[in-house]
C-alpha cells in the first residue's frame, strides 16, 4: 500500500492508501479531520475548501498522490493556528456578523474567503463586490449577504 506524508495543520502526518484516493477522504475517513465537508465531490460546491501552502483548493478533487511531503495542508481546524491566534480575523468576523445558520458550508466559506482576501491584498487592493461574486461556495441556508459583510470587515483586520 503506498505511503503518503504531508504537513497537516502544522503536524506531519502519514497515511497508507492507494494514491488515487482524493485528499478529502484521506482527511475525513482516514485521518479523522472533519472540518472540510462533503457537498458534491465534484469541485463544485466548495464545502471542502482548505488551503495548500496558503492557497485555497478543494481536496475532493486532488488525489493524495499529488500531495508532496513538503506541502502544508491547512483545514479550518488549523486556520487560527496558522496565524498564531485563538481565532483568525475571518472567524472573528464570522461570529461578529452571526453569519452561520446550519454551519455545514461555513468552514469552506471561511477558507475560501481568507484566500480571496489574501489574493486581493497581495495585489494591493481591497476585496471588491465583483471579486466577492467569484466565490463559488454554495450556501443553501442563503447566508451570502452576511458572508459579504463579514469578508469585508475581516479584510480590514487581516
Amino acid at each position, binding site marked *: 500500500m503506498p505511503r503518503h506524508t504531508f504537513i497537516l495543520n502544522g503536524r506531519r502526518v502519514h497515511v497508507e*492508501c*492507494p494514491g*488515487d*484516493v*482524493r485528499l*478529502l*477522504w484521506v482527511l*475525513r*475517513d482516514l485521518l*479523522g479531520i*472533519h*472540518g*472540510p*465537508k*462533503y*457537498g*458534491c*465531490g*465534484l*469541485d*463544485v*460546491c466548495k464545502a471542502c475548501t482548505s488551503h*495548500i501552502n496558503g492557497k485555497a*483548493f*478543494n*481536496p*475532493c*478533487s*486532488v*488525489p493524495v498522490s499529488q500531495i508532496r511531503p513538503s506541502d502544508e495542508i491547512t483545514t*479550518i*481546524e488549523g486556520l487560527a493556528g496558522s496565524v498564531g491566534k485563538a481565532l483568525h480575523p475571518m472567524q472573528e468576523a*464570522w*461570529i461578529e456578523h*452571526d453569519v*452561520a*445558520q*446550519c*454551519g*455545514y458550508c*461555513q*468552514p469552506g466559506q*471561511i477558507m475560501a474567503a481568507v*484566500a*480571496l482576501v489574501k489574493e486581493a491584498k497581495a495585489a494591493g487592493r481591497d476585496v471588491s*463586490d465583483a471579486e466577492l*461574486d*467569484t*466565490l*463559488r461556495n*454554495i*450556501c*443553501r*441556508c*442563503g*447566508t*451570502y*449577504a*452576511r458572508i*459579504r459583510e463579514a469578508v469585508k470587515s475581516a479584510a480590514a483586520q487581516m
Partner: protein
Amino acid sequence: MSKRTTSGGMRAGEDPAQLAGAGEAVGAAGGDHVTRRRFIGYLIAAPTVVAGSQLLAEPAMAAIPTHQPVDNYDLTDMLTEAAMPTSQLITVVVNRDGTVSFDLPRSENGQGITTAVAMLIADEMDVPLDTVRITLADARPELVWNQLTGGSNSMHSLFTPVRVAAAIARGQLLSAASALLGGPPSQYTIHDGVITGAGGRTASVAELAARGAVSSSRRVAVALKSSSQFRLIGTPQRRIDAHEIVTGQKVFAMDLEIRGALPTMVCRPPTINGSARAIRNLQTVRRMPGVTDVAIIPHTRFVAGGVAVRARTFGQCIDAIRALDVTWGPGTAEGKSDASVLAELHAAELPLTPAPVGAKTLQQRFTFYFRPGDPLETNCAIADVGAGRAEVWSALQSPIWAQEQLAQMLALPVGSVKVHVTQGGGAFGRHLFSDAAFEAAAISKAMRKPVKLMWHRTDNFRQGRVHPMATSLVRIAYSGANVVGFDQRHTSVATDFTHGLGELISAMLGSQPHGDLGYSQTYFNLTVNVPYNFGPVTQLLNEIYEPGVFNTSSVRNVYNPDVTTATELIVDRVAKAMGHDPYKFRRAFVRDARMLAVLDKAAKVGRWGRPMPAGTAQGLAIHNEYKGRSACLVEIDCRPAVVNRVVRDGYTGPRVTKVVLVVDAGLPINPLGLEAQMMGGAMDGIAQALTYSLHLRDGHYLEGSWDNAYYTREWNVPAKVEVIVMPPTTSQPGGAGEMGVPASMAAVACAYARATGTLPTSFPINHDRPLGFTPYPTVPPVPQSPTNGLKEAF
C-alpha cells in the same frame, strides 16, 4: 419518568376548573400590558432540579368558515395543539456544575431554534445564556406528536412549555436557597445565575442544583414573566454554536466516529425509483481496493435502494459504484417528462366556479416545475443493526416515526431501536422523511455490519425528494372600483405527507390508499389564503399520482411560494387594469392592520416608485402565514449587460439588486436569527423565481450537481439585502423558518414582469430555455471526482 401526584402537591390557582385540569391557565391580576397567567407544571423526582410543564389544549374552534379557513384556525394551531398534551414530558434540568440543560425534542438544521430555546430558558430563569446547554433529544415515542419539526411551528409550540419548566426550576432554586440560607423564598431573587437573599446572602446555581431536588414528582403552579420583564427575548443574540461552526468543531452525522461504521454509498438506478435486479460483476467489485461489502438493497416504500457498497473510504465507494455492472428494473416514473406531467396536471385541474355576473375577469395559469429540496449536507445516516437491536444516527425531523417504522422494518420492539437526532446541515423539509436512516438500517441489516451511509450529491438531486411540479390557475373578477371574486385552482403532483404528524399511527393513515390526500387537503386548507379583501374566494387543490411515483416532500413553505406568486402576479395585472399603482392597490385591499403596516414599511424603506432605468424595476408582494405577516420589495436588473454576464459553468441571468423584506412574526424571540431566516428565504425566493429547478426527461432528472441546479450563488446575490423585524404585535412567536420564501419569490416574479413588460407564466423563468449544461450520464449514476484540483488553487 415523572411520577404524577394528584394530591399533596402544590395546587395552582383559585379556579376549581383549573384544579380539575380543564383549563390551560387562569388570568391573574397584574399591571403588565400582557396579563400574567399562571401555569401548571411538575417538579420531577431526580437527583437535581428537574422541571416540566403541563398545558392542556383549548378546544378547537367549532366552526371553520369554508371560504378562508386559515382566518380562524391554521396549521400553526393544529401542530401546537397536537404537541400540547405531552408538553409536561419535556424538562429543564439544573446541573451540579451550575449549567442548565434542555434536551430539545426538535431538530436543528440551521433554523436557530437551539439558540432561541436557550434564550427562553435563560430569560425565564435569570441565568446567563452561555450556561444553558441545548442538546437534541433522541426519539421519544411518549411525546407522540411533540417531536415533529415542521410547519415553522417549533417556537410557537415550545414557547410556553419551555418557559413553564424554566420558571418552575427557577422557583425551586429560590426554595432551595431559602432552605440553605434561611428566610422565605420570596426574599430571594436570581440575577445572572446568582441567587441573592435578604441581607445579601448569596448562593450559586451549582450549589443549589442538588439541594433543590425532590424525591417525588409533584404539580406546582407558576407565573411566567410578563413581556415587560423579558431580558433576552426580543433581543438580538448570536447563534450559541457559532464558535463551534467557525472552528470546524460542529458535529454532523458524517463527523461521528461510530465503531465499525465504514463509509457506505449506493449505486442507484438510472431512472427514479428503479430497482437493482442483478449484479453482473459482483466478484470483481468485491475485490476492488478498500471494498468490504457489496449488497443489493431492494427498493421499497421506505428505502430507495440499489447496490450498496461499503469501503474504507467514500472515494473507494465511488470507484466501486462506477465499476458496478447492474441489471436494473424499471422505475416508478418511466417515460415521464416535464411535458407529459404538465399535460396530466392540466387534465386534473378542477373547474372554476362561474364568474360573478357582469364582472370583468383576468385569468392566467402558471406552471411551477420540479425543484430540488436539497440541503447542502446530502442524505446521510449511521446505522448499526445487530441481533435484537438497532441504533441509528441522523438529522431527523420526525424521529419518533423513524424509530417506530424502523422497528417495523427490522421486526424489533420499538424499545430496542435507538434513534439519535444529529445536527443537520440544512433540511428545508427534506428530513421530515427518514430516507437515509431507513436505507442505512436496511444496508446494515443486509451486511450485518455498522454502516456510515452517505448519498452522493448526484443521488440527492436525481433520487432525492423534490418540490412537486404544479400549476396554479387564477382568476380575478372585478367590477367598478372593487374586486368581486378570486378563484385559484392549484394542481400538483402529490406532496408526500406520509410521515403524518411524526409518529407511526398518523403516518399509517397517510399511507392508506388516498390517505395522503387527506393530509395534503388539510395542509393546503390550513395554509393558503388571499391576504386581500377580494369578496368570495375559492382556493382548491387537486393532486395527481400517489406518493411514491415521484419522491416529494414538503419543501420550505410547501404550496405557498407558488400559490402566492400566482396570486401576486395577477394582483399586479388587475391593479393595472383598474388603473392603480401596485402598492396603492395593495394598500386599498389588504385585510388587516398588521399587513398594512409591513406593506407600508417595505414600500417606504425600499423607496417604492423611485425612478429607475428601463430594463430595471421594483416588485412588491405580501404574505400571511404562521401567525405572521411579511412584505417584500425587490429591485431587479434585466438589462443585457447583466443578463449576459458570463460565469464559468454558472447561470447568471437577471440579477435582483435589492431586497427589502419586512416581517411581523408576532413576538420575535431572536430578531437576529429571524433576520437570518428571512435572508435565507429571500435567497430561495430569488432562486425559485429565476433559476432553480429540475428538468424531468424520460423518468429521470437531468441535474446532477450545483452547477446544473442553479440555486442562488454569490454572482446573483443582491448588493443590498435588508430585513426589518417589526416590533412585537402579539404575545406569541409566529413561525419564522419558511416565512421569507413566498413574498420574496412573488416579488421577484412581479419585478421581472414589470422590468421586461412581460408576464412570466412558468417558473423558474429560465426553465424552458435551452439547457445550460451537459447532463451527467445516468449509468454509472455518479460522476468521478476531478483530479485537477491543484490547478484551481487561488
